[in-house]
C-alpha cells in the first residue's frame, strides 16, 4: 500500500515528528511504500542539516534521512514546503541563490517544493496520515 505522511511540527518541541518516524519505519518494515513525507508549517525544521542534538539523544533529522525515501528518479521524497521553509530561514542552494543569501541548510535527503506536492501525495497514495499538534 502507498502511504504518505504530513508533518506539521518541528523536532524536539512536539512528539509529532517522532511518532511519524516510528510509523513510517513500521510501515516500511511491513512492506508498504512511503510515497512521500510532506513537511509543512513548523515541520520544515525537521530538514535542517545544522541540527546537533546531544550524543545520547535521538537525531530526528538523521532518522528521517536514514529512511532514504526516494522516487524512481532518485529524488528525495522528504519534501519541505517552500513557503513555510523560506519564512523560517530554511533554504536549499537554489533558494539561497535566488534570494541572495550566502548559505543553505536543507539536509541533502530532503528537497524543497510547493504545496502541490502535498495534494499530489493525497491523490497518488492510498492513505495520507497527518501528524501535528
Amino acid at each position, binding site marked *: *500500500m502507498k*502511504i504518505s505522511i504530513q508533518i*506539521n511540527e518541528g523536532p524536539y518541541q512536539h*512528539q*509529532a515528528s517522532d*511518532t511519524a518516524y*516510528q*510509523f513510517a*519505519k*513500521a*510501515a516500511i*518494515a*511491513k512492506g*508498504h511504500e512511503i510515497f512521500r513525507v510532506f513537511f509543512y508549517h513548523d515541520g520544515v525544521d525537521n530538514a535542517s542539516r545544522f541540527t546537533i542534538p546531544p550524543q545520547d539523544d535521538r537525531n530526528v533529522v538523521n532518522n528521517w534521512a536514514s529512511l532514504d525515501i526516494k522516487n524512481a528518479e532518485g529524488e528525495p521524497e522528504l519534501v519541505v514546503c517552500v513557503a513555510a521553509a523560506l519564512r523560517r530561514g530554511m533554504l536549499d542552494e537554489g533558494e539561497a541563490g535566488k534570494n541572495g543569501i550566502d548559505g543553505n541548510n536543507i539536509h541533502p535527503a530532503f528537497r524543497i517544493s510547493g504545496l502541490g506536492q502535498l495534494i499530489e501525495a493525497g491523490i497518488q497514495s492510498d*492513505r*495520507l*496520515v*497527518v*501528524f*501535528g*499538534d
Partner: protein
Amino acid sequence: MLHTVNKSSFERNSLKSCLNAIDDTSVILLIEDGVISAANNENSSMLAGLATEGRVFALQEDVDARGISSKVADNIKLVDYAGFVDLVEEYGTTVSWV
C-alpha cells in the same frame, strides 16, 4: 475511518469533537498524550461505550512512556506501531484530531 486523537481530554476538546463526529463503523486510536484518555480516570466514561464495542485502541509505546500501563481501562486494545499501520490500512481514510 480511523480517527487518531493525540491530546489528553484534560487538555483539549479534541476527543470530544471526535466523538461528536464519529460514525458507527469507525474506530479511535489514542496516541501521544491522547493515551491519557485510555486510563481509568474521571473522563473514562467518554470512551466506555465505544471500548465495549472494541472500537478504541491506544498506542502501547505512548501508554508505557507515560507510566499508565496498569491503569488502562477495560476493553481498550493496545497496539504497537505495526498495529497502527494495520489500522491505517484496514480503516481507510485517517482523520487526525490535533
